[in-house]
């Protein structure tokens, strides 16, 4: 049942949260426990650079994705989390150990603040994880990417590593607080993707094709069907900030034919 624990280097990053001793030991203990309790297979670990920045972009199905991806890596990874976690004694030590950087996500500047924080991590030469779908997919499908990851890639000249995992939904279905032990989970890391291979990084028309190409690779890794709509449109998700976007009326006579959708891969 236990899986092989990958070699791990605890990257020193005193400027970022989670560097204190309690986090160091806490994360180490959690890694061991996770690898003992679940049948975790890790593929493509050679795609994670030993050093330097990279943006990890996993599919997002379950709250526990934020556990399984970090413990599969040979290096530490940081991600944005809700500021409120720091007010709760249960999470205030554990979450920073997992690389969570609390950001106040209320208010209009929240998205910019999150991106600035992410840029700080990447500019420091570290790994940063962001769910490109922006929120958990309740449909099980892989949804259209938000542009944040691709824009970070341009801003910080960092490659994107597509990540596809399988099995986390069974470990912790929606609305379950506990994680069911003993189940198989697979985490697959794809090859690093560079935006310059998709066009001129200075041309904004390169962003969407790059973001789509990342989703295509994730779909190959996770085996999910891709749908060209944003996740969260079918359900609300408490974990992630609700993305409020203004909407205008569609012309009344416009044909609303559904787009052609077929299984990826």
């Amino acid at each position, binding site marked *: 049942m236990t899986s092989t624990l990958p070699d791990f280097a605890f990257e020193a990053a005193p400027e970022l949260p989670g560097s204190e001793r309690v986090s160091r030991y806490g994360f180490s203990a959690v890694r061991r426990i996770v690898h003992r309790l679940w049948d975790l297979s890790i593929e493509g670990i050679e795609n994670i650079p030993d050093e330097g920045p990279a943006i990890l972009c996993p599919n997002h199905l379950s709250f526990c994705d934020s556990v399984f991806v970090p413990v599969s890596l040979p290096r530490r990874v940081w991600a944005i989390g809700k500021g409120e976690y720091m007010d709760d004694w249960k999470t205030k030590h554990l979450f920073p150990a997992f690389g969570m950087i609390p950001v106040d996500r209320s208010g209009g500047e929240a998205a910019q603040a999150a991106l600035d924080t992410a840029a700080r991590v990447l500019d420091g030469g570290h790994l940063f994880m962001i769910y490109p779908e922006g929120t958990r997919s309740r449909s099980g499908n892989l949804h259209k990417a938000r542009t944040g990851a691709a*824009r970070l890639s341009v801003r910080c000249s960092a490659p994107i590593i597509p990540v596809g995992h399988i099995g986390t939904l069974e470990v912790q279905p929606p609305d379950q607080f506990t994680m069911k032990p003993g189940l198989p989970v697979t985490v697959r890391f794809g090859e690093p993707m560079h935006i310059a291979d998709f066009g001129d990084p200075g041309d904004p*028309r390169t*962003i969407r094709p790059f973001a789509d190409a990342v989703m295509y690779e994730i779909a190959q890794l996770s085996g999910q069907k891709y749908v060209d709509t944003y996740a969260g449109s079918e359900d609300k998700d408490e974990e992630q900030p609700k993305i409020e*976007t203004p909407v*205008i009326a569609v012309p009344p006579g416009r044909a609303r034919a559904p787009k052609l*959708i077929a*299984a*990826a891969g």
Partner: protein
Amino acid sequence: MNIASIVETHDAERIALIDGDDTLTYGELQAWAGSIRQLLTERGIGDDDRVAVPAGNEPAFVAATLGALGVGARVIPMKPANPLPELDRKLASIRPAIILVGEEASWMHDHAEGIDAPMIDLATVPRSVAASPEIVERENDDIAIMMLTSGVSGNAKVAMLSQGNLAWGQAAACENSVDGLASEDVALASLPFSHIFGLNVILLATLRMGGQVVLQRRFEVDESLALCTRHGITVLAGAPPMWRRWSMIDVGDAFACVRLAISGAAALPVEVFNDMQQRHGITIEEGYGLTETSPILTSSRGDAKGGSVGRPVDGVDLILVEEDGTIVDPGDAGEIVVRGPGIFQGYFDDPEATQEVLTEDGWFWTGDVGVLDDDGRVYIVDRIKDIIIVSGFNVYPAEVENVLLDHPDVRGAVVVGNPHLDTGETVIGYVSGDVDTAELDRHARANLSRYKCPTKYHLVDDLPVAPTGKKIRRELR
């Protein structure tokens, strides 16, 4: 108001139009337009009657248009050469009360029996009359011009532009260029007046300012250079194929007086922009607009950046939206939706087509996909109807075509989507040139995500391209 009055305030001695060796002053143009008003009034043509004007870029077209507008009629500019079935379809859809035929369209007189409306040969209309009716007052919302749209995406429609729409478009053309059009300007009119760019941005905007318009019946590169040299052209406007021709040749000092270079009608390739800058020292200002928007929506106004069509001009609200009307994420691609004083009044006799693109609160859905950069510049990606959906993923044909065109053996490339059992659609490439398709496939795979690579290539001699440079993909589907 009436846009027919734009020529009335200028000094009668100033030159308005130059056509070969002939010149026409503002005074002569005013008189000729007055004569047309007299003729139309005698025939009972007035408010909202439809007057078709098939003609080339000739002085009679200008007089006929101003004259018909002056009696309150709606003008439908038509290109002079139309295959008969196409002409029949167009006339059936606009049902003109009268047709004023220019020299370039004189062949139509031989087919008079098949045409319902009375036709007047403009060559027979006197250039001045002793007394002519006054220009009638019109309201801002009254329809002034009905444009047959180029119809790259399907059947031609007739866009109704109001007095206010056109006046705003002319003002935008004057005010949103580097220094604005001025009375000292000499503009080369090679773009057809049956196209909104040639009509409102070049012809009418220049006349509004009291400048000179040098007429070129149809674009021919050597003649265009000779006209530039002879008349000291200061305003040079073209569609991308024209700019490509100019960029490739030695122009001597033909462009010595050019102070304003404008491209529109289709996306200008970045290499053409760069070539013009490096080779001829000309920075092309690019704009974006449609017939339905009179046409100016964006302009690069003095800070042109290759690949971008500039920022929205004052008065235009421009947003990018998803299919359901949700505004896209920053940096993301979406359909360009606009609001402003130039937005048309709907398609003539076609409320269904109007309802597909126009909302009650005045937003016009352009059908073009665009992106905004952090500085608010607009970049055009593709036509929304041309997007190919492979396994749920959007493939923009322009992106694939640009990769194919990068291959040294490819002369032209168009890609379209074909239905596919497993993936919904699949990408099919049509290429011209001396190309080895296996080699081209390797080139595509090295430069594109797998789902974007054409699964089949067809070698063709010629690809369907409209005169404006727009690719007509529907002909290959």
